[in-house]
């Protein structure tokens, strides 16, 4: 180990330190709040870039390893380490949170609490990606989910959903549409998932007969095939909820639509990836036979996700809902890539996590800007914004193009790899829904772009303006990243490959 600096701990805990600082030192000083947040997330970002560059892809495996005992009798250790896959996710997280800090620069109400919660949440996210101890991973997972309730509940926005259909009574009873509803739904749904994860983790612990929750120790254990199957299923459901698998995805549209900008960015951009990451890292990584046995399920559900999400997105008139459903669709691609159990597919899956994270972060940042200026999310009312907000229009278009998998954006690389993986997998037909999904994406994304930014200016809005000042930072940075990684995907995939190939090698593929 050449790095004695606990770089992962620093990355992980820096935002938390920021949260504490914000909470206790910056009372009623909004600028200080922002600067502290920026500084701490900035440090994490710089460190994650450093780690990314310093990662030795020749050696591969888990690097920047840290460990100390937390609760020795149960074998809980604070154990951190990253490989190419998690490192990319860490990088994604730091990109999105830094952008998120900028994107929420204009939050006025109770900004101190807002930033504190946001930063605490980010620590959870980093923690999940860095943890090599399943228990600590679970801890961080919970930390990443909970602040969401207050973040959405306090700073969110309420949409309009009219209770209709045969279940209208149920909607009326649950209070659908309000931000409180969305916040509750999201939080509880994700915690529901975490219940499954917990059972899975305990099952591993018990079945392994170990006194440790360490990922590496579990990896060295081979579990009974029967156990592998059900535990994988449990992990799939648990993590899958966060990844938005159909039909357990309905928290996502409501939650993302109601959440404030930075939270939507972070949630759709990073947290949903936690789910997919969990399925790949924990599910496939530890339960290879279970993964192979259940790949058909994962892939089939993913196919439904892709097409169903795209069609649902097309049906929406609320801008945020469109983006939220597009996340459901894209997470389907992520899961599909993973389910192919091929090098191309898995690389595509991980790269899609990154690409979609940046892209959806950009989307939500832009939608936040549009919403801030128009105070409306109603697409049919909008029109012709391209003239007054050309910058936003451009960035939105680029995001949209990445979303529909246009080459030279990172979305393309991810999608083509997924396609390739799908065709090489045991279930070739998966290619069809995947491709259909991207075509449908082209339809709804361009339709939205056309409706909002093109055409004659809408009579409903006056005095609109383009983004300003710090708002640009997030938009421009994310846009550049989308294009940059689209053109030079090798710098990400090369690293990811060092992690996915050993993972695949453990699978008992015929």
């Amino acid at each position, binding site marked *: 180990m050449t790095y004695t600096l606990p770089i992962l701990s620093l990355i992980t805990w820096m935002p938390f330190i920021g949260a504490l600082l914000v909470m206790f030192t910056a009372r009623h000083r909004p600028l200080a709040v922002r600067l502290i947040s920026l500084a701490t997330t900035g440090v994490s970002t710089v460190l994650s870039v450093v780690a990314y560059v310093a990662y030795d892809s020749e050696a591969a495996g888990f690097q920047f390893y840290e460990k100390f005992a937390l609760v020795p009798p149960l074998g809980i250790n604070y154990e951190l380490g990253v490989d190419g896959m998690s490192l990319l996710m860490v990088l994604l997280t730091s990109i999105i949170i830094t952008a998120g800090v900028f994107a929420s620069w204009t939050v006025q109400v109770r900004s101190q609490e807002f930033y504190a919660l946001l930063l605490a949440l980010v620590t959870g996210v980093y923690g999940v990606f860095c943890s090599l101890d399943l228990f600590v991973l679970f801890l961080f997972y919970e930390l990443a989910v909970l602040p969401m309730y207050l973040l959405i509940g306090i700073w969110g926005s309420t949409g309009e*959903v009219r209770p209709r*259909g*045969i*279940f*209208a009574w*149920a*909607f009326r*009873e*649950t209070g*659908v549409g309000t931000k409180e509803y969305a916040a509750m*739904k999201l939080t509880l749904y994700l915690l529901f998932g975490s219940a499954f994860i917990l059972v899975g983790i305990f099952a591993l612990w018990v079945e392994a007969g170990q006194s440790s929750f360490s990922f590496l120790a579990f990896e060295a254990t081979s579990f009974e095939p029967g156990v592998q199957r059900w535990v994988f299923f449990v992990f799939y459901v648990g993590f899958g909820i966060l990844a938005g698998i*159909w039909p357990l995805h*309905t928290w996502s*549209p*409501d939650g993302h639509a109601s959440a404030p900008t930075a939270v939507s960015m972070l949630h759709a951009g990073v947290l949903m990836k936690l789910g997919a990451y969990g399925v790949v890292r924990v599910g496939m990584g530890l339960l290879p036979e279970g993964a192979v046995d259940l790949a058909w399920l994962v892939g089939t559900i993913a196919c439904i996700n892709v097409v*169903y999400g795209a*069609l*649902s997105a*097309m*049906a*929406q008139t609320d801008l945020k809902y469109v983006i939220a*459903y597009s996340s459901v669709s894209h997470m389907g691609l992520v899961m599909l890539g993973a389910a192919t159990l091929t*090098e*191309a597919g898995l*690389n595509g899956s991980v790269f899609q996590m990154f690409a979609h994270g940046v892209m959806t972060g950009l989307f939500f940042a832009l939608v936040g800007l549009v919403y801030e200026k128009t105070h409306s999310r109603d697409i049919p009312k909008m029109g012709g914004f*391209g003239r007054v907000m*050309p910058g936003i229009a451009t960035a939105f278009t680029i995001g949209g*193009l990445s979303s*529909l998998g*246009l*080459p*030279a954006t990172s979305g*393309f690389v991810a999608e*083509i*790899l997924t*396609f*390739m993986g799908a*065709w090489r997998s045991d279930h*070739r037909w998966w*290619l*069809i829904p995947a*491709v259909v999904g*991207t*075509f*449908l994406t*082209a*339809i*709804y994304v*361009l339709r939205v772009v*056309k409706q909002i930014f*093109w*055409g*004659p*200016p809408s009579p409903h809005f006056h005095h609109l303006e383009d983004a300003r000042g710090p708002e640009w930072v997030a938009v421009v940075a994310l846009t550049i990243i989308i294009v940059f990684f689209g053109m030079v*995907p*090798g710098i990400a*995939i*090369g690293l990811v*490959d060092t992690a996915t*190939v050993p993972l695949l090698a453990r699978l008992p593929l015929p």
Partner: protein
Amino acid sequence: MRILVWLPLLVLGLPFASFLLLAVVPPLRRTGRGAGVISILAIAGAFLGALGVWTQGFRTESRWEWIPADGGPMATVGILVDPLSAAMLALITLVSLLVQVYSLDYLHDEPARGLGRYYAYHSLFAFSMLGLVLSPTFLQMFIFWELVGLCSYLLIGYWYDRPAAARAAVKAFWVTKLGDVGFVVGIVMLWGTTGTFDFTTLFAMARENQIPAEGLTLTLFLIYLGAVGKSAQFPLHVWLPDAMEGPTPVSALIHAATMVTAGVFLVTRAQPLFLLAPDVMGIIAAVGAFTALLAASMACVETDIKRVLAYSTVSQLGYMMTAAGLAAAAAGFFHLLTHGVFKALLFLGAGAVIHAVGTNDMFRMGGLGRAMPQTAIVFIVGTLALAGVPPLAGFFSKEAILAGVWQHGATTLFVILALTAFLTAFYMFRAVFLVFFGRAHAAGHPHDAPWLMRGPLWILAILTVAIGLRYAIGGHGDDAHPAPGWLAPFSVVLALSGIALAWAMYQRGAIEPAALSRALRPIDFMARRRYGLDALYGGLYQAFILGFSGLIGWIDRYFVDGILNVLSAWTLRGGDGLRRIQTGRAQDYLYGVAFGVLLVVVWFHWWAQ
């Protein structure tokens, strides 16, 4: 050696650099004409480079890793220079250069900001198109294929606040994307069986029969679908006429000379593979011929001058595809090149006319020959070339195709194409007579365009003539398909009869157009309604995609999410119901205790045994 790589890279890099500059430096973009100059300089440089490459006859191939993988890259990018791509390079850079110069004056009324955007798109287009033709792999070709589609989308929607333009741009993107879906599936399938995207490798495998025949037909058909979309073949041709909502120079460049020919280029480039699938080749040829005739018939009833040219483009693309499908790829490619030149000329000429009179409707023009003689002359040169009148460029290329078709023994196709040639001459001269001859309709004082616009027109006109003359003097370059002797007179007759018919109808008035319409009522009726295809697609889109999405959206919101809400509502109600056992009466609580005892005993019996 080094220059072999660097020169094509320079050709590729200059427009890209220009694009980057314009995209990343907003002040530069906002200068408008300044941005135009940068872009023009870049493309001029590229043109010179392309000329160098073309004339020197470089052949080179280079690759770099793009998507790494364990045990060798999964995908590479690079450049492949051979005569095919070199010729395309020259054509693309030339037309791009001329169109960009032309645009400088054509769009001088545009705000500087918009103009900067326009040139940025143009640079990007040039880069993408060059990248496409230089691709050594299917994947890279697909990448640039999509990028040119993007540029097309952006440029059609250049006047994005016009609803028609916005609609047309989106339509163009969707329809071509539909074809591209096939393309991408095709190349992925090809990769699945061969493990490579690389042309050279694939061709080598094809030569040695190492490509498994199973599924190859389907694979190649899917790849061909990409060409169907991009090259506006039936049934995906519907986007091209609508694409005329973009600025005219864009139409000239993208929707006539370069991008739409990408499909033909693809089939030509991958000819060794397509030859392995005769069925697909047959489809390509048949669809091409059918498209040619169909588009020609629609052009005959069109009143919008640009749309006439658009249909003629579709029609000519059908020609090229037919040739490609009948293994006469060289002829097709030849037509591609000549067509690129004179169709660009025609579009730019039409642009000059539109610029002058402010309308697209041919019936509101007339007598412009006197008002703008230079434009008229170059337009007529282009028209003659398109109609296939010797010794202009179009005659030779068209004849090469007809010869190829005849040689192949596809009589039906030959008849269709001959008919199309006749119709082409007819509708083109219909346009000429309506626009440049007859009575002047237009108000105001139309006059010839400024020199920046005229210059490119003349250059293209001269080229049209020059290429024609070169072949007239030097004979056919293509000896693979020696034309039968009667073919040349036959095509001249076809062209002249078409011209004569147009003259009789629109100049002379000898034949009443309405009478002819009545005589050919069913065809006329259908052609005027574009054979109902647009309506059909519109209906399918509305009913099928939007309707289905509406259904799914409803299901998701009110059923899938509904079930979740029902579960939570049930939970809440369950809690409310359950708390009613808490009646407040002490005896009921005592019941609870008694029940508890019973429960414990009963459970114990159940489970302990």
